[in-house]
């Protein structure tokens, strides 16, 4: 017993010594937050590391977690699908900037046997489905928008997120803007009290629900719908046109929202004006402190500039929408205010 104990102990100490000796480290930046940003961040930081040798270590623990860690100063930057509230800004303990870095579309996806694609929906129908007022797929309101489509007499199973999420934030924000009843009875946020429906964990959970359950409807990020070949609905936007969730539709929404964009970028671009704007999309922001000199801050500023200059051009392959140039210049102006 003692001999084996000693063996284990020696082995462990060797590992610890090797690990503790520490490989010579290049400068490392740590970031945490949104899962939405993760795929593009991994791509960006991989290339950035190859080009500049700086390690940017990002972990998608969730927007809320990202903000918490940012406030606790355990990470250099946070990434979040919901901009900092006044409460949180107060906790940061210094000036901070919310910088939009990516944006994406949220689809309304469905599993209706016999309807493989091209279902048209509008804001009233979606709100009523999620409020429980419309319960069957062959409801007259849906049939009216989709003449010629054979809608089955099937109950609608509503799927939503069980975890807090930026996607929910965007979706419920849209519903709040378009439905007075939703605004008064539920509201918007990363987690809400859903009137009805089953909860799936993460986008993949909701995607799984939609795929498995005939008659299911749910909201998921564009990437999940495309990658899993789940049909999505064309939505009627503010201008009255039916638009598919797409990269172009999202970029159009950002351009449409640009006119009323506040300087601190704290805006939800749902239900944006514009002929081709897709109504359910949103930003994801990186949160940084503006008043913390040091080599980490300089590295962060360089990274952000690179994201706007080079990174922005690569996003489409992963289903994010590139920022229009007008927005990029506004963001660059904000980045230049960060002191380092």
């Amino acid at each position, binding site marked *: 017993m003692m001999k084996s104990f000693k063996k284990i102990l020696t082995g462990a100490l060797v590992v610890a010594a090797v690990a503790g000796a520490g490989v010579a480290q290049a400068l490392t930046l740590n970031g945490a937050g949104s899962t939405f940003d993760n795929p593009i961040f991994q791509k960006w930081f991989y290339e950035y590391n190859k080009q500049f040798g700086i390690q940017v270590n990002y972990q998608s*623990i*969730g*927007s*809320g*977690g990202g*903000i*918490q860690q940012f406030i606790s100063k355990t990470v250099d930057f946070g990434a979040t699908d*919901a901009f900092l*509230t006044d*409460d*949180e800004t107060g906790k940061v303990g210094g000036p901070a900037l919310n910088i939009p870095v990516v944006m994406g579309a949220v689809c309304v996806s469905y599993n209706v046997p016999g309807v493989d694609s091209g279902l048209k929906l509008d804001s009233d129908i979606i709100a009523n489905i999620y409020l429980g007022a419309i319960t069957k797929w062959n409801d007259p309101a849906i049939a009216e928008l989709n003449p010629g489509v054979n809608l089955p007499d099937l*109950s609608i*199973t509503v799927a939503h997120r*069980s*975890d*807090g*999420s930026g996607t929910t934030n965007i979706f419920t924000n849209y519903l709040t803007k378009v439905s007075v009843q939703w605004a008064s009875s*539920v*509201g*918007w*946020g*990363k*987690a*809400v*009290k859903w009137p009805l*429906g*089953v*909860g*799936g*964990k993460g986008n993949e*959970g909701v995607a*799984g*629900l939609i795929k*498995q*359950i005939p008659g299911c409807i749910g909201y998921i990020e564009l990437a999940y719908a495309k990658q899993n070949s789940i049909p999505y609905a064309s939505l009627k936007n503010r201008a009255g046109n039916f638009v598919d969730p797409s990269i172009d539709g999202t970029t159009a929404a950002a351009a449409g929202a640009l006119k009323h964009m506040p300087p601190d970028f704290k805006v939800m671009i749902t239900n944006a004006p514009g002929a081709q704007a897709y109504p359910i999309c949103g930003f994801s922001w990186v949160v940084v402190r503006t008043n913390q000199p040091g080599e980490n801050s300089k590295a962060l500023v360089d990274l952000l500039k690179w994201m706007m200059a080079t990174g922005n051009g690569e996003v489409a392959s992963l289903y994010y929408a590139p920022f229009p140039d007008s927005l990029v210049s506004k963001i660059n102006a904000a980045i230049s205010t960060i002191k380092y």
Partner: protein
Amino acid sequence: MSSLDETKLVENEGGLKQAPSFFLFKWTQSIGLGDVVFRNLTAFFAFLVLVLAMLTVAALWINSGPCIKAMGWHFLSSSDWDPIQNIFGAVPFVYGTLVSSAIALLIAAPLGLGISLFLTELAPMRFRDPVAFLVETLAAIPSVVYGLWGMFVLAPIMRVYVDPFLHGFIGGPLFGEGPTGLSLFTAGTILSIMILPTITAISREVFEAVPNVYRESARALGATSWETIQLSVLKASKAGIVGAMMLGLGRALGETMAVTMVIGNTPKVDINLLAPGHSMASVIANEFTEATGDVYLAALSEIGLLLMGITLVLNIVAHLLVWATTRNFGKV
């Protein structure tokens, strides 16, 4: 040697009177420095267990502050879970945790005991190690894999075959409609698979430790296999089996990843076992990383605190049960 005090004699395993071990010990040795150090060292580690528990409770208590202040006792009686309005109630989660864990234990306990009995008493030698190895493999599967398997394999089976069968065959309020396959019942089933290795492995060890003498004496009296097991193995292993069950129950109460993918995540109390539900561990895991806002985070911490409290109560109940049933053990 001190003189023998007849009144202090106790009955040993063979039914003979002998001195209690402690006195035997005292009479044959003096307590040396090594023993003192040993006793204190091990006591220290036992104390560390207490320290860990105190730290956990303290962390949860402190973090729950804002919610305790905001919701008070309503937290324990309300079924509302509204992060926007900052109104929180724990009832649906408590219900879900208790029901799913009960189902898990109801399924896994007899299965686990059956398997371990099979492995230690009944199976031919060449089957034992392979089957045991298979059961231990179950323990090595990460919980996220259980969750994915549950969502893509188990839930559809439930939705298409099992739930309609239960609804049609038994029905009643307990087995109503199960349209999605995501339910407390599915969660209980997957939990039972997850706690099975724990119960089996520990029960197996406990059964192995029963001296052969017991089995042989029962056989010599003409007992069948089952009677031998009843008389010699089960009776002697009660405490160990309870220990196995407690650990299994603990795992079931605290399991998050697998449960959250099959339970439906709907904070509602529904007597229908085939309807979606929620559980305490699930809601914490789901919402903690995204939660912002003091009361919201505190509500989740308070659920964690509540879970510890419930585990405590269940343990007390289990101990009382064991005490009540073993009281008459000595008197055959």
